[in-house]
């Protein structure tokens, strides 16, 4: 198996940075899931797609727009009407979905290479993300598991909250390095560690 090259490589500096003498309040890392797959249902076929997600990924989606769930290995969330992003540590998820999601239900699009997954965690995660995105990151407005599609100027992202203080950001691979640099820069104020 040939390892995938990370787009962040030259800018990925493990260790503590910024104002960390006063404590590290942000952890940044690239989660490098093996699979990132978009599954999308035709109108009216959402329930079947949701059950397909349960079958393939073993994840039960909660109700509601933008709802999602993560078990630490696999994650899923809605990001648009009838559309979901599913990520898995393992490769091969697209093929697995292709077997279950029939043309009558919807489509499967493999984005495993095309999106880069960056995790930001720590007590200041909401604070740092608020510098980029005009969405409400407070827990009641953005519950654990939920997903959001949003943009920071030219950079389109999907964000899933995977913990009280933890967010996974899916960014287009070609923009990933620029976004990563900006994220590091914005985290300097509170001290951050790259893992």
């Amino acid at each position: 198996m040939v390892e995938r090259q990370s787009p962040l490589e030259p800018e990925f500096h493990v260790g503590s940075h910024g104002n960390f003498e006063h404590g590290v309040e942000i952890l940044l890392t690239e989660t490098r899931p093996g699979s990132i797959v978009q599954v999308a249902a035709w109108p009216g076929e959402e329930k079947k797609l949701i059950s397909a997600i349960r079958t393939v990924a073993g994840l039960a989606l909660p109700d509601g727009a933008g709802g999602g769930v993560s078990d630490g290995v696999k994650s899923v969330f809605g990001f648009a009407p009838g559309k979901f992003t599913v990520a898995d540590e393992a490769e091969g998820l697209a093929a697995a979905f292709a077997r279950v999601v029939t043309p009558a239900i919807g489509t499967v699009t493999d984005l495993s290479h095309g999106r880069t997954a960056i995790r930001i965690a720590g007590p200041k995660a909401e604070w740092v993300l608020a510098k980029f995105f005009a969405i409400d990151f407070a827990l009641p407005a953005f519950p654990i598991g939920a997903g959001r599609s949003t943009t920071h100027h030219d950079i389109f992202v999907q964000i899933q909250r995977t913990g009280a203080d933890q967010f996974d950001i899916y960014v287009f691979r070609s923009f990933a390095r620029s976004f990563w640099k900006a994220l590091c820069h914005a985290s300097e104020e509170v001290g951050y560690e790259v893992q």
Partner: protein
Amino acid sequence: MLITCPYCGPRDVIEFTYQGDGNRERPDPASQNFEAWNAYVYDRLNPAGDHNEIWQHSGGCRAHLKVVRNTLTHEISSVVFTRGDHGRGDHGSAARGKAEDKS
């Protein structure tokens, strides 16, 4: 300005792309009625007051929205998907209530 996307909730206007007059009707693709085509491509309602508009939530779920917005006050009185009840059910707009913005 905020637009309440029926899927994503209230979002800043920066996430949206304006696609213009929503009153226009595209003629049948095979139509040879050139007046109708011209009107569709070039002529616009441009009211001072409530306007039916198409917006795309291009920086979010990318759905297109029918928006009723007042061009004098920028007040938005209605937002729905152009596709109608698209995506209703578990992951449609149910969780955010009806697709309306009274703010």
